[in-house]
């Protein structure tokens, strides 16, 4: 991929782009040059600002400052359709396709070719076929329903949709996140075909191997700021990872409480797998805090859901206290002493229009009604010990702050006296004080012999709280690390620089 044509003026040029959300600046003066016929890689950790930048280029968000030019013309998109007219198309992570409609209908949605006022179905079909042929794609027919296609095929339909507006710039947000390796090879080939047609590509990916296989230029973002932007030849894996991380650990994490002992194995998963997970082996001991790191979409949440029983494992075995179990619902999970604090507090953690007390009693009333009466007396004590600030336990939880809501969720699960607590991003979006309260609670649960799984996107949190760190990548366990590891080591496992497996065919396509 060396010696790529980067001559001439850039097609797309961003200068000093700034963006604020609710008064917080998430992009600080980021600049970017994208040339025709090249692939421009955009990398950075979760929350580094890649998606925001992509969305500004795509017209989903509007920038608060800076300039965006296409072919030296200043543009300001207020809608993705305007961006499309200017020749910028985006393939988002979330597909923009209608599963019940055919490939041709999706590709030309909103721009159906007409003849004498009627939609020219034949032309639509023929044009779609021509676009498919252009990229050398076989096996997709314009008449196929999109919902029946594989994820890779849907991705290609998205790309075709982008091409049908004559896009000069196509940006792809983690296009391989959900692809198998064979499918990635097809995408590589399509990107090669696009390059030779002179299309400029912005390529966001967490997989560093792909970045090096495909990209001519690499831009690194960190905490919303540009770190570096240079030709791919000048960077290597280690250097790239170093550029992506390297921030000070500033948060405060309480030490383990005295008398905390790591006991026997409580939970054991062997060869666990489902549609989203494969080959999961996990041991969890009493009193242990197991940190789970990994990029978004790497299967962290799915792992917790599988253990809890909401979206159970379809293969493998799960043992709790030595006896094999098949959990098929959350109810069974709770019955067996499991608790899951979900990532989406408002959506799946709380009944927002009910009172603090009702929410705290929700799980116990539903699953152990015989214990509810006794618990009703104890819940105020639990809420108090968590320092929930509210106008009394009859207040609607909707009105509480994020941190206090999270404490109510925790109280709900404490009431069921669980032996295994699964926490999915328990400190997301809550203030520092509440964070520390959550950390303290985790420590005190560990002392009482409760086994804890802590999923977090914040690496300092995972490193600061865990006894052991499990790194997920692509639905598999990429490795386990001690808490003395560095952020670089975790990230290297999570993005797969260590044991990246890329099919030979894919590699050669990339290097041609």
């Amino acid at each position, binding site marked *: 991929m060396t010696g790529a044509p980067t001559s001439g003026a850039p097609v797309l040029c961003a200068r000093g782009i700034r963006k604020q959300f609710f008064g917080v600046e998430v992009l600080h003066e980021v600049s970017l040059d994208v040339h025709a016929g090249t692939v421009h890689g955009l990398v950075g950790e979760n929350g580094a600002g890649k998606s925001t930048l992509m969305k500004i280029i795509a017209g989903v968000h509007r920038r608060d400052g800076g300039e965006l030019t296409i072919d030296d013309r200043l543009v300001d998109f207020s809608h993705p359709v305007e961006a499309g007219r200017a020749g910028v198309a985006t393939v988002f992570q979330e*597909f923009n396709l*209608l*599963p*019940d409609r055919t490939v041709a209908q999706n590709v030309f949605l909103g721009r159906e070719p007409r003849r004498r006022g009627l939609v020219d179905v034949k032309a639509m079909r023929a044009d779609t076929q021509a676009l498919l042929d252009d990229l050398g794609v076989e096996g997709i027919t314009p008449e196929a329903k999109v919902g029946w296609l594989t994820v890779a095929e849907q991705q290609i339909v998205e790309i075709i949709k982008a091409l049908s507006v004559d896009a000069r710039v196509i940006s792809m947000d983690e296009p391989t996140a959900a692809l198998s390796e064979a499918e990635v090879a097809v995408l590589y080939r399509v990107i090669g075909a696009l390059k030779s047609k002179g299309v400029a590509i912005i390529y966001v990916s967490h997989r560093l191997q792909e970045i090096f296989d495909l990209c001519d230029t690499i831009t690194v973002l960190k905490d919303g700021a540009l770190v570096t932007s240079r030709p791919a030849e000048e960077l290597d894996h280690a250097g790239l990872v170093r550029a992506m991380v390297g921030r000070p650990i500033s948060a405060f994490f309480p030490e383990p409480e005295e008398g905390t002992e790591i006991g026997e194995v409580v939970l054991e998963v062997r060869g666990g797998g489902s549609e989203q*997970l494969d080959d999961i082996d996990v041991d969890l001991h009493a009193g242990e805090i197991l940190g789970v790191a990994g990029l978004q979409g790497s299967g962290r949440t799915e792992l917790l859901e599988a253990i809890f029983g909401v979206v159970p494992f379809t293969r493998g075995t799960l043992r709790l206290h030595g006896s094999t179990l098949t959990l098929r619902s959350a109810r069974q999970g709770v019955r067996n002493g499991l608790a899951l604090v979900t990532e989406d507090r408002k959506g799946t953690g709380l009944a927002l229009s009910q009172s603090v007390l009702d929410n705290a009693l929700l799980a116990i009333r539903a699953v152990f009604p015989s214990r509810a009466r006794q618990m009703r007396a104890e819940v105020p004590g639990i809420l108090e010990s968590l320092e929930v600030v509210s106008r009394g336990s009859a207040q609607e939880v909707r009105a509480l702050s994020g941190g206090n809501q999270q404490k109510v969720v925790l109280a709900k699960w404490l009431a069921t006296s669980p032996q295994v607590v699964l926490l999915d991003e328990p400190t997301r979006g809550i203030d520092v004080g509440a964070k520390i309260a959550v950390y303290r609670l985790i420590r005190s649960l560990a002392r009482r012999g409760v086994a804890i799984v802590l999923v977090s996107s914040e690496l300092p949190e995972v490193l600061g709280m865990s006894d052991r760190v499990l790194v997920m990548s692509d639905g598999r366990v990429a490795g386990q690390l001690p808490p003395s590891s560095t952020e670089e080591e975790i990230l290297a496992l999570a993005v797969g620089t260590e044991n990246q497996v890329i099919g030979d065919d894919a590699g050669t396509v990339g290097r041609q």
Partner: protein
Amino acid sequence: MRLRLRRLDTTALVYLALLAVLIIAAILVATTGRSLFSPGNIRDILTGMSVLGFVAIGQTLVILGASLDLSVPYVMSLASLVAAQTMNGSDAMVVPAVLLTLVVTAGIGLANGLIVTVLGVHGFVATLGVGLILKGYLDTNYQGTEGSVPWSFQLFGATGIGPVPISTIVMLALAALVAFILVRTAFGHHLFAVGGSSEVARLSGVRQRLPLIGAHIGSSVCAGLAGLLLASRLGVGSPTVGSQGSYDLLSIAAVVLGGTVLMGGRGSIWGTIGGVAIFAVLDNLMSVMQFNPFLKDVIRGLVIIIAVALYARRRVIARRIRFAANAPGPNIATGSAPAPAPAPAPAAAPAPAAETGGRSQ
């Protein structure tokens, strides 16, 4: 078998079901010594189809757009009254009366569409409200039947070509027209898109409001046509013809039976016509066999539930599967796929043939 069923278009499935119902009905009717296919009986079945057919065609449009129309029975009643009063027994007034009826009903549809799209009120509530307003108007201003329909217009409901009533022919022609509109006009394509996902439609540059407003106008006009047909059969306008037939729920049932998804975005007019035909044959069978009328509703209800349960099993789910339990087969990939070891499939999982396994849901 499972696989083949899945491959089959839902509309084709509806007509297979219709065929099965016809065969069963023919056998049952034959046991009473009569024939289901006698000209008289065929005329009865087709007559039973036409009124519900008109309403269901319109209902299909709104449901495709992920809305609903509960105001149809009152629109029908109002249409019958407007037509009968304007005609008032005079042949010369037939054409103006029909035009006026269509304009009035289109106006109601426009109101429904604007309430749904501009005010953002869900179709269920919006049309329920408009329906109640119409009901109140009808109940306060009409004590009973009014107006009179001249003989020339009564022919619309009374004559036929052989055993096929004119009204059924008109209804089927309308179905063909609407089916054509859905396939060959931008309106049709955009209606499917808005119903399937309003957000996807918006991001693709579709103006989301227009298709839905159009669908609501279409639904009201179709209900108006049904009202005209009823007026022609009765010879008068009646404030209760629509609600007596409970055409709101029956039309939704027919649409759903025809394979159109209540959430919008998927379905077809011909499926709906199949659904209407199944209801008509069942009704005819039960009246020929002199079933208890309550049993009639029990059977209708069972048929709808069974049908929708069947469709739900075949639903397309666009969920990304990372590790399919069955070997994934990317049709387009050329490289050797390092497929995850085929795990011991759990007993509950279906095991379709490998080449289609990866995406069967």
